[in-house]
């Protein structure tokens, strides 16, 4: 073969060794980390927790608002927020984090580290400097065809997988974290601005303005057409708490009872006009006025509530001893279609394991399992163990005496019954 002289200096298309281009039928811009929904074609992003994605209908639709009602000590809701942000880092989305209690940088430093499948790929992705590499990799002598391929690819930056797994015992590498663009809003450092005649009190007004500025500046509202524009993720921690200057958590009839609801309404309007996703956590256990809580739920698109067992009498309940808390799905959105996701069961419980945040049905089959399920019925596991694919894994629950397992004894405790209905398009 001739020496590879041509095409080295300036190849017009980076990464294309031939001029053949695959003809794409769809004109949709494919944003990494998103996938279309099977129900109504909405573009979905992952919330960072695969089982939560399953429960809320495949993922968070772009342009919607997810409301998380915090548990008593804000431990698991904060974990969900960190998963959400970590997923954004891994998929290359921009982040906006607003918090009033802890500095956003502290929350960012606590992000869980993603579990990468190929360890070799992880090693290659350790940045530009390769001190252990003896040869100068500028010119390739043998694999010259691949000279113009992108040199360094972080295995995670090019990850187009939907949904990743995280190891909560390790924090994310600083290089990975800094690769993501993060805008932060720390309430205690903002100078209070007199808002004049706006019905929104100062912190919410400033926050809304900051979000709008970021969206406009980065062009997410379509003002500057960007190919492959990332979808920004907004994480707002503990809205409605006292540190935001809101007394909705203090009194039954707060003075600013419309501040938080007006903010959520405006935020949802902002999200609809731009391709962004927001996750808002609200300390609902402190809000005494149930009417306001009802309004807050209706003003958001998807709403879930976490109820942890810590400190409550359910901690010692044998029914719940495998779980850390209950998860209630309060509202599921109807987006561009008449029907919404109808969940199979409303009794869900969650458990935070080291490598997974699992959400399962909390109903357990009674110990002598006289429930007969035909073996051919496919069951979809809520927590895929190691394969994040969406194919339902068949789980067979046998009635007593018909299991082929010779070691099955009478009265043995059956495994917790996972959701057993096939996922079929609604």
């Amino acid at each position: 073969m001739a020496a590879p002289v041509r095409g080295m200096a300036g190849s017009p298309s980076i990464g294309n060794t031939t001029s053949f281009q695959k003809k794409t039928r769809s004109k949709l811009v494919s944003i990494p980390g998103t996938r279309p929904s099977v129900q109504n074609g909405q573009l979905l992003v992952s919330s960072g927790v695969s089982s939560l994605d399953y429960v809320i209908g495949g993922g968070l639709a772009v342009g919607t608002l997810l409301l998380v009602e915090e548990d008593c000590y804000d431990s698991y809701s904060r974990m969900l927020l960190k998963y959400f942000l970590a997923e954004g880092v891994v998929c290359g989305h921009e982040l906006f984090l607003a918090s009033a209690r802890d500095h956003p940088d502290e929350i960012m430093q606590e992000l869980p580290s993603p579990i990468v499948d190929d360890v070799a790929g992880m090693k290659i992705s350790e940045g530009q400097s390769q001190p252990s590499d003896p040869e100068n990799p500028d010119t390739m002598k043998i694999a010259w065809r691949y000279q113009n391929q992108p040199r360094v690819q972080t295995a995670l930056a090019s990850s187009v997988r939907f949904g990743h797994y995280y190891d909560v015992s390790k924090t994310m590498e600083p290089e990975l974290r800094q690769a993501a663009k993060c805008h932060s809003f720390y309430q205690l450092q903002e100078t209070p601005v007199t808002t004049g005649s706006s019905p929104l009190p100062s912190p919410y007004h400033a926050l809304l303005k900051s979000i709008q500025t970021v969206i406009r500046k980065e062009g997410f509202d379509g003002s500057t057409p960007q190919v492959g524009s990332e979808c920004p993720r907004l994480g707002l921690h503990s809205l409605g708490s006292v540190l935001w200057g809101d007394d909705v958590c203090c009194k039954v009839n707060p003075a600013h009872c419309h501040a938080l609801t007006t903010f959520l309404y405006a935020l949802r309007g902002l999200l609809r006009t731009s391709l962004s996703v927001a996750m808002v956590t609200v300390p609902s256990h402190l809000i005494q006025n149930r009417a306001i809580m009802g309004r807050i739920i209706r003003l958001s698109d998807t709403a879930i509530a976490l109820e942890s067992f810590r400190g409550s009498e359910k901690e010692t309940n044998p029914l719940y001893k495998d779980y850390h808390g209950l998860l209630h799905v309060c509202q599921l959105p109807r987006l561009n279609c008449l029907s919404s996701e109808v969940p199979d069961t409303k009794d869900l419980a969650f458990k935070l394991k080291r490598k997974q945040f699992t959400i399962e049905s909390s109903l357990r089959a009674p110990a002598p399992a006289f429930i007969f399920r035909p073996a051919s019925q496919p069951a979809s596991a809520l927590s895929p163990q190691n394969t994040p694919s969406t194919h339902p894994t068949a789980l067979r629950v046998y009635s007593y005496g018909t299991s082929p397992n010779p070691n099955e004894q009478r009265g043995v405790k059956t495994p917790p019954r996972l959701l057993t209905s096939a996922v079929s398009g609604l």
Partner: protein
Amino acid sequence: MFPELNSILNSTPDSFKSSDFILVSDRRADASFLIHHYLSFYLRAGCKVCFLGLVQSFSHYSAVGQRLGVSLAQAREKGQLVFLEGLKESFGVLLQDTSQETQPLSYLRSPGAGLEGLFRFVESCVRQSGDGNAGESWGPPVLLIDDLSVLLSLGVSVGAILDFTLYCQATVCSELQGNMVILVRCEEEDADDDEEGSNLLQRGLVHQCNLALHVEGLPTGYCRDIHGQMEVWWRQRGETIYNQRKIFHFKVHDKGASFFARGTSSAVL
């Protein structure tokens, strides 16, 4: 448009009652599918529709409308549909430092002042029906409001909202012989929540209306196949007072909703 609902209510796009005030309400359920039904119903009937979309964007309604067989974008171009984008323009109005002439959404900046700006918008929209394009004369005007109760979350008082609906009813129903469909979402009946609640608003509106459709979840709990129950209350109609109530179960599909008498769900039979 749901054919079964048309037969229950005895109305078709060709023949429906005029000067009707229909109130759609729900409690811990979602009755917005009825708004989609009425939107496609009146567009098919050839009426001029003024739609105040305060909680969803236009693309949401137009996507659902396509499944139900009407094209909202086309209707908007022809002038049959006037859509107020309340949600998408809200943050712009709120963040403005100078109060512009955004009259319809002026309640966002000053919720205590009432809804006069919104009413002026509605009035100008429904009164234009006579002098439309050449040759395009639409039927009686129809006012559709998707979610009046969100105004309570924005700080508008119940009294102001009831005033607004009275003005609208006087203009649209009595004067112009048109129809009005309003969606109100309520919360649980709370003993200590009677002052400024959506329940008060719903009770006040039920008094004014001719037909009340109330959607709730099943009293026995959650069910996958029956999404809820709908109570139809035929109220005053001109001089006669019907006061007849009936309860139906429904299930919402992708392209419509089916209604059936209690206990006759296909999942049960």
